[in-house]
C-alpha cells in the first residue's frame, strides 16, 4: 500500500518536473479573478473571458511573436487572499502584468504595485485609480498617484455622472413634474464595499450640479437577496431616481423589491449591475431600467464578436452560450488593451513594468481596438481616464436601447480636466 503510494508520488513529481520547463520565449501574465466570492455573479463570466481572450491573442501571434502564459487564480473576493496571490505572481511566477478584479483589492494593492512598478489592469474602474500623478482634493488632502493602474472603461464616477445626466435630460425633463420641483436621488449600495461606494461622492456632486436633491443612502449588501427594509426606508423619502451601485444579483433584488412594494422610480445601474442577467433576475420589474455599458453585449453584431463566440465555444464548451454575458467582452477589452500596450512597449524594446506604461499605454491616442463597440482609448502621463463618452442604455421589452451618449469632457471641459480627476 505504502509502496504503491510512493510509486505514484514519484510518478507525480516526475510529471511535474517534465511539465515544468516552459516554451522558449513567453511572457507571463497573472490574473486574480473572483469565481466564488461576493461578486462571482459577474466574476465567473469575466474570468472565462480573460482566458479565452488570451488564447485568441496567442493564436494571433502573441506579443510580436512571444506567447503569453496566463497564470489565473481565484481569490474569492477576499483581500488577504488577493495579497498572497499577488506576491506569488510577483516573486515566484515573475509575471510582468497583472489582470486584477475588484476595487477593494486593486485599491489596497495600489501602493504595492506602484512600488513594484507592476502594470495592473483591473476590472475595477474606480476613479481613485485614474490619476497617475499625486493630487490634492478640495479639502486639501493629499492623494498618492496610481501610475500603474489601468483599465479600458470609463471610470465609475464618470459612469454615475453620465447616467444621472442622461436620466435628468431624457427622462425627468419629459415628465409632468419637470420644472415644478427638484427631483430627488437616493443611492443603494454596500457602504462597506470600496467598489460600491467609489462613485457615491461623484454622483452626489453631479446631483448638486444638475440641481437635484439627495436623500439618505441605503446600505444593500453585495450578496443581498432581500432588500425590502431598504426599499421601505427609501420610500419615506419619495425619491424619483435610485442609483444602484452593486453587482447584478443584489441590484436586481432591489429593483424587484421596489416593484413589489409599489415604489415607482427610475433605476440607474452601474456597469457591473447591468447585463443580460439583470432582466432574467428582475423580470417584469426590469422594464425601463437604465444602466451603463461601455462594451458590446455578448453576441451583439460588432467587429470581432465572431471570434469571441468561437473562443468561448472552443475553450469552455461546457458553459451554455445563453449563459454568457457582456462580462466576457469586458474581459476581452481589457486583454486586448493589455496586448496592445505590451506590443508597443516590446517594439520600443522596453518590455518592463515602466516601459509598458510609459512606452505602451501612454502612447495610445484615440486607439481603436479590434473589438467593436468599444470607444477609442487615450492615455496620457497625467490622466488615465481612457474615455469620456458614457453610453447610457435603457432596457425595454427584451432589448437594450441606447438612451443617450453623454460626453462629459465636451459638456464640462473645465471640470473634467481640473476638478474630476481622481475621485
Amino acid at each position, binding site marked *: 500500500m505504502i509502496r504503491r503510494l510512493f510509486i505514484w508520488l514519484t510518478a507525480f513529481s516526475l510529471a*511535474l518536473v517534465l*511539465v515544468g520547463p516552459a516554451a522558449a520565449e513567453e511572457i507571463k501574465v497573472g490574473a486574480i479573478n473572483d469565481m466564488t466570492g461576493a461578486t462571482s455573479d459577474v466574476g465567473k463570466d469575466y474570468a472565462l473571458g480573460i482566458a479565452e481572450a488570451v488564447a485568441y491573442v496567442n493564436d494571433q501571434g502573441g506579443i510580436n511573436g512571444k506567447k503569453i502564459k496566463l497564470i489565473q487564480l*481565484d481569490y474569492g473576493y477576499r*483581500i488577504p487572499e488577493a495579497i498572497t496571490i499577488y506576491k506569488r505572481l510577483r516573486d515566484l511566477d515573475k509575471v510582468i502584468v497583472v489582470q486584477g478584479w475588484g476595487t477593494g483589492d486593486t*485599491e489596497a494593492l495600489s*501602493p504595492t504595485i506602484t512600488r513594484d512598478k507592476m502594470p495592473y489592469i483591473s476590472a475595477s474602474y474606480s476613479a481613485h485609480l485614474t490619476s497617475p500623478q499625486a493630487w490634492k482634493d478640495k479639502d486639501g488632502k493629499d492623494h498618492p498617484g496610481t501610475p500603474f493602474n489601468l483599465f479600458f472603461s470609463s471610470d465609475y464616477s464618470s459612469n454615475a455622472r453620465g447616467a444621472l445626466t442622461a436620466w435628468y435630460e431624457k427622462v425627468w425633463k419629459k415628465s409632468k413634474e419637470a420644472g415644478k420641483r427638484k427631483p430627488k436621488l437616493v443611492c443603494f449600495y454596500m457602504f462597506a464595499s470600496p467598489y460600491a*461606494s467609489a462613485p457615491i461622492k461623484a454622483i452626489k456632486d453631479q446631483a448638486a450640479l444638475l440641481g437635484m436633491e439627495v436623500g439618505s443612502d441605503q446600505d444593500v449588501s453585495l450578496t443581498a437577496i432581500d432588500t425590502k427594509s431598504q426599499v421601505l426606508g427609501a420610500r419615506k423619502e419619495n425619491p424619483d431616481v435610485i442609483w444602484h451601485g452593486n453587482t447584478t444579483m443584489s441590484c436586481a433584488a432591489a429593483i424587484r423589491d421596489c416593484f413589489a412594494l409599489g415604489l415607482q422610480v427610475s433605476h440607474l445601474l452601474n456597469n457591473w449591475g447591468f447585463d443580460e442577467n439583470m432582466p432574467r433576475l428582475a423580470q417584469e420589474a426590469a422594464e425601463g431600467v437604465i444602466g451603463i455599458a461601455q462594451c458590446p453585449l455578448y453576441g451583439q453584431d460588432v467587429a470581432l464578436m465572431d471570434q469571441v463566440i468561437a473562443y468561448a465555444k472552443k475553450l469552455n464548451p461546457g458553459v451554455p452560450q445563453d449563459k454568457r454575458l457582456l462580462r466576457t467582452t469586458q474581459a476581452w477589452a481589457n486583454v486586448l488593451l493589455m496586448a496592445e500596450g505590451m506590443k508597443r512597449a516590446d517594439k520600443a524594446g522596453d518590455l518592463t513594468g515602466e516601459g509598458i506604461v510609459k512606452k505602451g499605454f501612454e502612447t495610445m491616442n484615440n486607439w481603436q481596438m479590434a473589438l467593436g463597440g468599444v470607444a477609442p482609448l487615450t492615455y496620457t502621463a497625467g490622466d488615465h481616464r481612457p474615455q469620456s463618452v458614457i453610453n447610457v442604455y435603457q432596457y425595454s421589452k427584451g432589448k437594450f436601447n441606447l438612451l443617450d451618449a453623454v460626453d462629459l469632457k465636451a459638456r464640462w471641459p473645465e471640470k473634467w480636466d481640473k476638478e474630476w480627476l481622481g475621485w
Partner: protein
Amino acid sequence: MSYLPCGVYHEFYKQDQAWWQTRFVRGKMILLGLLVFAVVPLTAGNYTLGALSEVAYTILGALGVQLLIGYCGQITLGHAAFLAVGGYTSALLMLQLHLPYVLTMPLAGVAAGLWSVLFGLPSAKVKGFYLIMTTMAAQFITVDFVITQYVSQVGGRGQAFSLPPGTMKIGPWVIESDRSIYYLLAVTTALLTLALANLLRSRVGRAWVAIRDNDIAAEAMGINIVYYKLLAFFTAGFIGGVAGAAGLSRLAAISPEHFPWFWSLWLVGVILIGGAGSLHGVFFGSLFMVLVMEALKFALVPLTPIFPQLAMKFLFLKEATFGLAIAVFLIYEPNGLAYRWWQIKNYFNLWPFSY
C-alpha cells in the same frame, strides 16, 4: 542540570515555573531566535518573507482567540472586529494626528481592548452558544456598522483608503520592503507571545484556566469571574488591536473588506487545528493554515497547462481542505498539532530508553 531534562528536580516555585529550564532548551531557543530574526530574513526571498509575514499576522490574530477560547473558555466568533478597530485606530491616528507608528500600536491595542470589553459584557450572563451570538454581533456591529458608517467619516477619507508612502516608519526606518514588514511582524509576535505566556503563568492566568474548567467552582473558590472574564476580553482585544495595527504595514491600505467575518472563523480554525489551550498551538496552526495552502498552490500551478481549470477551482479546494482539516483534527487529533509536537518531543527526549 545537564543536557537532558531527565531527572530535573526543582527546589523553588521559581524554578518550577521557569520557561527554559535546562541549558539544552536555552540553546534551542537561541537557535530559534537566530533562525527567526537573522537567518530567515537575511536569506529568504520576498515570496517566502511575504508568506511568513502572513503566518505572523495569523499568529497575532489567533493569540487573542486562543486566550479567549483556549484559556478562558469564552467562545468568540468575532475577533476580526478587534483587528479592524486596531487597524483603523492606528491608521487614523497616523493620518489625523500624525502620531508615530510605534506609538499608535499600543493605543490601537487599548482602543480595541476597551471595545472588546463592551462586547465581553454579555459574558457575565451568557455562556456557550449564546456567547457565540454576542461575539458575532461584535463583528457585524463593528465592521459593517460602526466602521463603515461612522469611523469612515473621520477625516472624510471614506471606508477604504491607503496611507501615503513613508507614513509608516519607526524612527528613520520606513516600513515598506517585505523584509522590514517581516521584522516588524516577527518582533511584535515575539513580544506579545512572551507577554501572554508570562500572564498565563500568573495569578490572572490561573484564574482564567479555572473559569474555563468550571466557572461555578471557580466562583466558589473566590474568583471574581466577571472581572476575570472581562480582563480576558480586554487582553484579547488588546492583542487583536496591536495585530490589526501591525498588519497595516503589509499593505499600507485599509478597508472593511480586510476584516470579513470569515477571518474570525478562520482564526478559530487555526486554534482548533493547532490545539486549543496551547500557545504552541497558535504557532503550529498558523504555520499549517498558511503554508499548507501555499504548498497546495505549488502543486497546482505546474499542472495548469494540462488542466487549465485547476487554478480557478483552487479556492474550492482550499475551502474544502480547511473544512476537512478541521474535521480530521477533531476526530483523530482533538488536541491539535501542539499535542503531536509534545509527543514527538518527548519521544526524542527519552530516546533511546523511553520508560
